[in-house]
């Protein structure tokens, strides 16, 4: 009897250390931030000395044009990078899903950008975008096309391009893995049924990859909303507010404007947005599982 109880408890005992660390390292700061977001808080004060202001930090943000601008920039950035990355990543995967000589080298080359530290990516692109010595403008000028004010007039577009360069490989490898795990014989059956290459992609490959693509897309969106380093290094949010994504706005609110309560409230908005995406992803997974379960049950009844 006691052994049985002990056996049942074993997994929880093993989990306990991780739970304790998670609670300390994750839940405590999170609680601290949520608590702080309800207070008028200057960095010179300790949290205990601050004044409780209710939801006014949250309401204030909606009247703040800069916050709304920053939210718009973030949404524009996230949606455009993820959609372009999905198209290029999946397209590349469809192109490179074949066994040719040297293909593995090519695949490794394609995923390199993802492995470079974000700060390095930011620096690299800043130099490449440099108005006079950057490779883009030098090339354009030597071709007689004149120069482009990359990080000035087209700052958002420029950081979008850099992000696409860095994160398309992520979608590429996941799509490639999905493609390679597709049932070979279904594709062969499609060839015999008379499907051309395009028709195979549209009618068989893409629909079968869809579960992976949806999860990949949500993962990338979550990441894109949290982006910081590359943009920090490239533009520091400028010029003006043109590339000031939420993460940068939060950090400036906390350090430059010394409004810790407002910064905390802003963080919570971002957290809610990410939570929404995460829940959507989990719900989608759950939905898939339920559908598979249902199919299995029906199949068993069919025997």
């Amino acid at each position, binding site marked *: 009897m006691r052994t049985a109880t002990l056996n049942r408890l074993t997994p929880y005992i093993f989990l306990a250390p991780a739970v304790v660390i998670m609670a300390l390292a994750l839940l405590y700061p999170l609680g601290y931030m949520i608590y702080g977001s309800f207070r008028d808080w200057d960095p010179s004060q300790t949290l205990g000395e601050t004044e409780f202001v209710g939801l006014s930090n949250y309401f204030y943000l909606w009247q703040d044009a800069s916050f709304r601008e920053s939210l718009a920039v973030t949404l524009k950035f996230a949606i455009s990078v993820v959609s372009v990355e999905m198209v290029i990543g999946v397209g590349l995967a469809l192109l490179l899903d074949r066994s040719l000589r040297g293909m593995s080298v090519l695949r490794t080359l394609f995923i390199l950008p993802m492995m470079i530290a974000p700060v390095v990516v930011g620096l690299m692109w800043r130099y490449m975008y440099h108005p006079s010595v950057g490779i883009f403008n030098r090339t354009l000028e030597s071709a007689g096309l004149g120069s482009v004010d990359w990080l000035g007039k087209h700052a958002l577009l420029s950081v979008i391009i850099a992000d696409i360069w860095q994160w398309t490989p992520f979608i590429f490898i996941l799509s490639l893995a999905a493609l390679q795990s597709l*049932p070979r*014989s*279904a594709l*062969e*059956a*499609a*060839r*015999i*049924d*008379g*499907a*051309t290459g395009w*028709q195979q992609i549209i*009618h*068989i490959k893409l*629909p*079968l990859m*869809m579960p992976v693509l949806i999860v990949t897309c949500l993962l990338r969106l979550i990441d894109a909303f949290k982006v910081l380093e590359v943009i920090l290094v490239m533009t520091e949010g400028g010029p003006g507010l043109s590339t000031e994504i939420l993460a940068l706005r939060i950090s400036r609110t906390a350090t430059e404007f010394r409004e810790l309560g407002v910064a905390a409230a802003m963080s919570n908005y971002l957290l809610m947005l990410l939570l929404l995406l995460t829940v959507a992803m989990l719900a989608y997974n759950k939905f898939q599982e339920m559908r*598979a379960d*249902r*199919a*299995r049950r*029906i*199949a*068993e009844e*069919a*025997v």
Partner: protein
Amino acid sequence: MPAIQLQQLTKRYGKVEVLHGIDLEMADAEFTVLVGPSGCGKSTTLRMIAGLENVSGGEIYIDGNPISHLEPKERDLAMVFQDYALYPHMNVAKNMSFALRLQKRPKKEINQKIAEVAEMLGLTDYLHRKPAELSGGQRQRVAMGRALTRDSSTFLFDEPLSNLDAKLRTQMRAELALMRQRVRKNMIYVTHDQIEAMTLADRIVVMDGGYIQQQGSPEELFKKPANRFVAGFLGTPPMNFLEADIQHDGGHTFFRGKGFSLRCDEATKRRLSGHTGSGIVLGIRPSDLTFDPLAEESIELNVAISEYIGAQSVLICDCHGAKVMVELKSDTPIALGEKLNFRVDMESMHLFDPETERAIF
């Protein structure tokens, strides 16, 4: 003119040749079964006909036209795969109509065709289901249905029953035989199961090691196997092989091996006239051994195991180190460990050259 003809068909993977220039002719509307152990090249041959594998050498003709350079879709074939290869995201109706929809046939015609085929296969109630919601046998039927809606001139089957359990396999085999009577098309069927081959085929092609060993009607192959491999492959329980020496003694010819001596009759003597060499391999089907304590031309066997399978039993016996199987009625009174006499029927005995393993007729 043969409907489908393979001429010196060869397949190489790199330097390894797996199919060594096979020649085969299949008549119009013939049900041809390629059978052999795994790795014998039967599936490769089928996949080359389908266009899923490149042809390394030789040519495939359909109605006299070379097709090995054509894409699968240009060959007018339908194929049933071992793992069904259904499209998981489409329901049964969509699966069956995929080819027709790609051809942009009128909707009315497609629906009519699906209804017709579904009716024939008993799938009418399942048209809206996805493959995951079907049992193994139903999925198998959908795979057949997908091939049938195509109206192709040629049907290819790649071990279509091997993923089913034993009972379902027998049932589907019978259904296939029925379908075969209704659908007069060229059919090429690959299997490793010799019972499927024997029951379904108009023509069996036995393959081994990338060569065709023998082809002909099931009866021909069973009664007159061309070599030891074919003889051992077709028939359950398999044929017994006993090594013997040919000895002449007092005007008679004897087959003498370990523990037996059989006197040849006149017919057998005549068969031996073309055979040089003193050794021979005797092939005796388990059903051709008869329990008979008094018979003269007989072998004495030591019964080791008796496998009861109903009306018949299979005895696994020992004959001085050689394993011999005997099939006989279960009510024959026999005890394990007994030494018993079995009559050998000279007429039904197969003879093989021990060197070339070819049959001596």
